[in-house]
C-alpha cells in the first residue's frame, strides 16, 4: 500500500507494536530547555536512572530568560534557578548545552534547525508544543509532556499511537505582502482550532514548494494551533540547501548517503489521507485575529464578526466571550482597531527573513506616538545576521527596541508582558486570554503586518503602506 510521508518515518522507527496498536517508537533526537525539563531530571535522579543517549540531546535556555539585559543582576531568582538547573543537569549527564552566555543561544525551535540538529526523516521531540516547527524539514516532530521527556531520556523511546493523516494542499503563488503566517492563520480558520486533533498535517502544493525554510517553519509551527501535534513538509532542494554546511549536519559520505535517503521521503503516489483540505493561496490577503483562539481569524480588510452569524450556539457563545475579553464590537473594521504594543519575534516569526520583512516596512518611517514596539530575534545568530545587514539600525531608528534572544513577551513569562487591557499586534502564535499577560489582548499577524501596525498605531493592511 502506498504510504504517506508520516507513515514512512513512523515505520522506520517502530521497535515493537503492542496488541492495541500502540507502538514502542525510537526517538532520534530531543531538545530540552529550562522550563519543562528540570522535573524530568529530578525524577530520573529519584529513580536512579541514567540518560540513555546524552548525545541525542540539544539544550538551550529560552523561555525564562531576560531579553532586555543579560547582566547577572538582571536575572530574577526564579528564572536563575531554572537556568542554573539546566546547566547542572546537562553537565551531570554529559548533554551538549548552549548556555545563556553563548552567542548561539536562542529559542529551541530556532536554534535546532539553525545548527543543523533538525534533519529530514528523524523522529524528534521536545517538551514543548511548537516542536511541530521541525516538521518543516520532513522530520516527524511533536511536542510531549515532561513525564514523556523523562521516558525519552531514560529509554530513547516513546510509547505512542500513530496519528491519523491529513493533507492541506495550497495552490500558489502567494501575492506580495502575503506570507506563511497569513497562510497558517487562514488554514486554522478553515479547519478550526481542533480540526487537526489526532492528526499529523502534511502541507503540499505549489505555494508550499515555493516557501523558504523559514516560511515552512512558520507554517508547521502553527499546525499545533489547529490541534495537530505535527506538521510536515516533504524535504526538497530548498531543504538540502538550507542544511548543507550547518554545524551539526552530516558531512562527506554521510551527507551524500543522507541526501540520497532524504530524496525518497515523499508521500507515495496513490497514498490516501484520512482528511484532505485545499486552500487557494493566490486569493489570500493578509490575515489577522480578532478573538481569543487562532481560529478567530479574518482578512485585514474585513470586520469583526457578529455572534448572531455564528454557525452554531456553542460557537456563538465562544465568540461573545471572545468579543467581551477583546473589548470589540461586531462590525468594527479590523483596520480601525488601535494597538498599544507591537511584538515581533518568537519561534513562529523570529527568524532573519521575518526581521527583514519588518525592517522593509519601517525603513525611513517612525512608529506611531504612544505605541511601544520591540523586536526579539529568535536566536543570537539571527540577531548577529540582522545586525550585519543593518536591520537593527533601521528598526531602532524607527523607535523599536532591539532585544536579546528568547521567548520574551510571547507568553507571560518572567520579564515581559502586555499590560491589563492593552492591545498587542504580535507575531506569536497564541491569542489566548491572558497569554501575553493578565488581561492582555493579542492580535496575531505576520511580521510585515505587525510592523505596519507599529507605524500607523492601528491594524493596517501592509499593502497600503506601499
Amino acid at each position, binding site marked *: 500500500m502506498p504510504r504517506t510521508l508520516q507513515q514512512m518515518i513512523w515505520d*522506520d522507527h517502530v*521497535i*515493537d507494536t*503492542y*496488541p*492495541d496498536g500502540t507502538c*514502542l517508537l*525510537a526517538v532520534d*533526537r530531543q531538545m530540552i530547555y529550562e522550563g*519543562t525539563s528540570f*522535573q524530568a531530571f529530578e525524577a530520573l535522579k529519584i529513580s536512579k536512572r541514567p540518560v540513555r543517549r546524552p*548525545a541525542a540531546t*540539544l539544550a538551550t535556555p529560552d523561555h525564562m530568560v531576560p531579553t532586555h539585559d543579560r547582566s547577572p543582576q538582571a536575572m530574577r531568582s*526564579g*528564572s536563575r534557578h531554572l537556568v542554573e538547573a539546566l546547566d547542572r543537569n546537562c553537565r551531570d549527564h*554529559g548533554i*551538549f548545552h548552549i548556555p545563556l552566555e553563548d552567542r548561539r543561544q536562542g529559542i529551541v525551535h530556532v536554534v535546532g534547525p539553525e545548527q*543543523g*540538529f533538525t*534533519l529530514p*526523516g*528523524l523522529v524528534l521531540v521536545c*517538551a*514543548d*508544543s511548537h516542536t511541530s516547527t521541525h516538521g518543516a524539514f520532513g522530520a516527524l516532530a511533536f511536542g510531549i*509532556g515532561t*513525564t*514523556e521527556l*523523562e*521516558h525519552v531520556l*531514560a*529509554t*530513547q*523511546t516513546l510509547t505512542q*499511537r500513530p496519528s491519523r493523516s491529513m493533507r492541506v494542499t495550497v495552490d500558489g503563488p502567494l501575492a506580495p505582502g502575503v506570507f506563511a503566517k497569513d497562510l497558517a492563520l487562514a488554514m486554522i480558520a478553515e479547519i478550526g*482550532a*481542533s480540526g487537526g*486533533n489526532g492528526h499529523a498535517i502534511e502541507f503540499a502544493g505549489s505555494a508550499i514548494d515555493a516557501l523558504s525554510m523559514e516560511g515552512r517553519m512558520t507554517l508547521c509551527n502553527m499546525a499545533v494551533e489547529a*490541534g*495537530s501535534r505535527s506538521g510536515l513538509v516533504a524535504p526538497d532542494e530548498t531543504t538540502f540547501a538550507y542544511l548543507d554546511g550547518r554545524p551539526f*549536519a*552530516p558531512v562527506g559520505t*554521510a551527507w551524500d*548517503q*543522507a541526501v540520497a535517503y532524504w530524496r525518497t521521503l515523499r508521500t507515495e503516489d496513490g497514498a490516501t489521507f484520512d482528511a484532505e483540505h485545499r486552500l487557494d493561496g493566490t486569493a489570500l490577503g493578509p490575515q489577522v485575529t480578532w478573538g481569543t*483562539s487562532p481560529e478567530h481569524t479574518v482578512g485585514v480588510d474585513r470586520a469583526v464578526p457578529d455572534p448572531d452569524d455564528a454557525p452554531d450556539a*456553542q460557537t456563538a*457563545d*465562544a465568540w461573545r*466571550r471572545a468579543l467581551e475579553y477583546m473589548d470589540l464590537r461586531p462590525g468594527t473594521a479590523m483596520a480601525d482597531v488601535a494597538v498599544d504594543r507591537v511584538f515581533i519575534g518568537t519561534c513562529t516569526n523570529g527568524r532573519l527573513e521575518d526581521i527583514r520583512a519588518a525592517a522593509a516596512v519601517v525603513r525611513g518611517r517612525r512608529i506611531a506616538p504612544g505605541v511601544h514596539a520591540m523586536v526579539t530575534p529568535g536566536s543570537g545568530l539571527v540577531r548577529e545576521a540582522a545586525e550585519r545587514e543593518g536591520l537593527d539600525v533601521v528598526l531602532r531608528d524607527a523607535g523599536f527596541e532591539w532585544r536579546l534572544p528568547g521567548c520574551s513577551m510571547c*507568553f*507571560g*513569562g*518572567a520579564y515581559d*508582558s502586555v499590560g491589563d487591557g492593552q492591545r498587542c499586534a504580535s507575531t506569536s502564535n*497564541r491569542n*489566548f486570554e*491572558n*497569554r501575553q499577560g*493578565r488581561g492582555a489582548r493579542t492580535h496575531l499577524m505576520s511580521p510585515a503586518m505587525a510592523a505596519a501596525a507599529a507605524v500607523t498605531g492601528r491594524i493596517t493592511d501592509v499593502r497600503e503602506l506601499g
Partner: protein
Amino acid sequence: MQPFVTLTSVAAPLAIANINTDDIFPAPATSPIKLGRAGASRDELGKNAFAVWRWNADETPRPEFVLNQPPFDQAAILVTLDNFGCGSSREMAVWTLLGTGIRCIIAPSFGDIFYGNCCKNGLLPVRLGGEDVAALLALVDVPGGALVTVDLTAQQVTGPDDSVHRFEIEPYHRTMLLAGLDEIAATLQRADAIEHFEQDYDRRRPWVAASGPPT
C-alpha cells in the same frame, strides 16, 4: 502513579469550549498565585489551577468561578466542552488539576498532548459524545451539585439520573491507569529490543549517529 479504577464524586460543570493549558495553568506573570519557589514540585501546584479565573490579584477567591462554590469546590470530576487542554504542552496543567483534587475530566474531545499527559499521571480523560456531555452538564449544573460515577473497568459513566454512558479508551492507557503502572520500568524491560533496533538503525541510517552536537 496513583491507579484509577472507579470514582464517585460531585461533578463540576465548566461549559466553555477550547479551554487551553494557559487557562488551566497560567504563566508566572499572569497568574495571581506565585509559586512558592521556582521549580515547585508537582504536589505544590493545586492553587494554580485556573488561577486567573479562580483568584483575584490579591489571591482572594472569585465567588463566580465554579470551583469556588460549594459543593463544586470538592469536585473530583470536571465536565467540560470540546478540545479541553489544547495549546501548550505544559504538564503542570495536569499536575495542578490533580493538586486541586480533580481525578477525571469528561469532555467531547481533548488536546492531544494534554490527553497523553493525563494518562501518564493517573488523571482519567473520558471522551463522550457531544450530546451525552450536554446532558451531563445540565444534570450536574444544579444547586447542591449531583453525583457522577466513573468506572474505568466497565468503561462507563453513570449520571445522576442513572443514565449510563459507555466510553472508549485505548487499551494500553486503560491498563496503565488501572494498574498505576510505572511506564519507564515497563519499557526498560524491553532493553534488548531497543538495543537490537538501534544497532540495525545505525547500519541503515549511519548519518544520524555520525552527526549532531559534539560529545
